[in-house]
């Protein structure tokens, strides 16, 4: 028996979500009275996972896995789960995790719950709380199969240090064939992505035109934040689709979300209300976003944002 976690690495280094799923997996293993096994692929040094509770690390090293292929990874997870007799398999909610987790579940003939936000409330029947109705609600879901696969929502559990002295084992799974071929990857380098950002600065139609985004980018840069936008802004082509956050855009679950010139339509709020703290800056005190926000400023973005940038620069200089 065991709990199996997949810890994703990129260019040999673990992502923050990998440490988060490991932290979470350790607690689930404790609840079940079993051990945590963490599966890694092509990571240079896995010892950091011991700090978050990994009792056993399975390392797979294979050049064929340098470029992510969901079918291959889903099949390796299946082999690892079978080898370790895992009752629960836990995967993160990055783009790759969301891609292969349901494939792994189908491989294992396992019930699957995505968007899980808390530890199981009961382990028998295994019951987890997950986000549903596009963040407008939650449901408590029982997984009825012997093996259970869950995806942990980002930033839902956090990192919990839990140092153990574990072991590392080389694992050489069989690689299945795939004729799905990756031909190129384009990545915006040097920019914080919405998926990974602790802070997201987002702006809407209140900014009047794409030429006014300079101050949004500057504010984001001062805060080390990612930039985002509302749906109308991306529909108008003022900003790329990749920045659209909301019900049909990207979900945001950052620590801080700053909404500038966004009124707060129900669809927008659904996509961003998993963020822990929300700040709204809007000229209209009746804007629905004020009902969803923690802190608000009624004011003109063109006056408030430049001042806020200056004040934050002073704050950063004093707190460096």
């Amino acid at each position, binding site marked *: 028996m065991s709990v199996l976690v997949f810890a994703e690495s990129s260019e040999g280094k673990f992502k923050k979500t990998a440490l988060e799923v490991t932290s979470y997996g350790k607690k689930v293993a404790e609840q079940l009275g079993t051990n945590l096994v963490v599966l890694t692929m092509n990571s240079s040094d896995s010892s950091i996972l011991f700090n978050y509770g990994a009792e056993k690390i399975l390392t797979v090293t294979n050049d064929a896995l340098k470029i992510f292929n969901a079918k291959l990874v889903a099949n390796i997870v299946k082999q690892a789960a079978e080898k370790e007799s895992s009752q629960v398999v836990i995967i993160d909610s990055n783009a790759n995790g969301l891609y292969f987790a349901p494939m792994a579940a189908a491989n294992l003939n396992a019930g699957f719950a995505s968007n899980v936000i808390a530890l199981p409330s009961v382990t028998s029947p295994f019951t987890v709380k997950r986000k549903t109705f596009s963040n407008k609600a939650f449901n408590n879901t029982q997984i009825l199969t012997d093996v259970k696969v869950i995806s942990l929502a980002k930033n839902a559990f956090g990192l919990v240090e839990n140092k153990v002295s574990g072991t590392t084992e080389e694992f050489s799974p069989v690689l299945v064939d795939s004729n799905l071929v990756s031909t190129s990857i384009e990545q915006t380098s040097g920019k914080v992505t919405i998926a990974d950002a602790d802070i997201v600065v987002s702006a809407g139609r209140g900014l009047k035109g794409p030429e006014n985004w300079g101050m949004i980018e500057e504010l984001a840069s001062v805060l080390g934040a990612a930039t985002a936008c509302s749906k109308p802004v991306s529909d108008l082509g003022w900003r790329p689709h990749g920045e659209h956050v909301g019900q049909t855009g990207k979900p945001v679950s950052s620590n801080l979300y700053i909404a500038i010139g966004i009124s707060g339509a129900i669809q927008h709020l659904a996509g961003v209300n998993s963020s822990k703290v929300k700040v709204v800056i809007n000229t209209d005190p009746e804007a629905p976003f004020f009902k969803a926000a923690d802190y*608000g400023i009624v004011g003109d973005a063109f006056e408030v944002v430049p001042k806020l940038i200056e004040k934050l620069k002073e704050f950063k200089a004093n707190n460096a």
Partner: protein
Amino acid sequence: MKILVCISHVPDTTSKINFAENDSKFDSNGVQFVINPYDEFALTRAMWFKEKQGATVTVATVGNAATEPTLRKALAIGADDAIRVNAEALDGFTVAKELAEVIKNGSYDLVLAGKESIDYNGGMVPAMLATLLDFNFVNACIGLEIEGDKATISREIDGGKEMLEAKLPLIIAGQKGLVEEKDLRIPNMRGIMMARQKPLTIVESSNGKATTSIVSFEKQPAKSACKLVSADNLDELIGLLHNEAKVI
């Protein structure tokens, strides 16, 4: 080319979400149902292949008779025929197993779906279908071209995109970018009239066993009131974010 578009019948994006029977069921009272927005991107791309490349387009859903108006809407947009698997959509895995039977029986070359439904947000049906059928699969798809039996696909990754190539048969889980918002279609009167004559086949369920079960729902907890800060006192805002919220 034979295309199947998987359609989920979901509450409209503006719906207020309420629960009934001791929070054990979704309260559909007064709720307007629509084609799942992610599936609409998939359907719109399928219409493009029909018009430009002569593909035939079938739409399918798993659900009771209440889902038929949603299928008729897809027919009014231009799909050729529809299939309803007469079963309760118990969970994503069960739905995938039902749809896998439909795909085997119809020998489709290309299966298009949305990457998730906006009600249960499972995000699992297309991936599970691909695994059950051993088809190629791309999630979070933002671009798709087909030439002969070769597909060129792009998918969204964290902070960028990846280009891929695959042979048909292929399953795609789409999102915005697969087509643009402005390309989405509203059925016109002629389409609505024609949709009434188009075949809607009802297929009996293969009676799969649920792998998960929702025991209860909870709404988002009520929020405490927003603290308003004067636009002339931004130091106060920074102080609150630093000392109280501890996020900067």
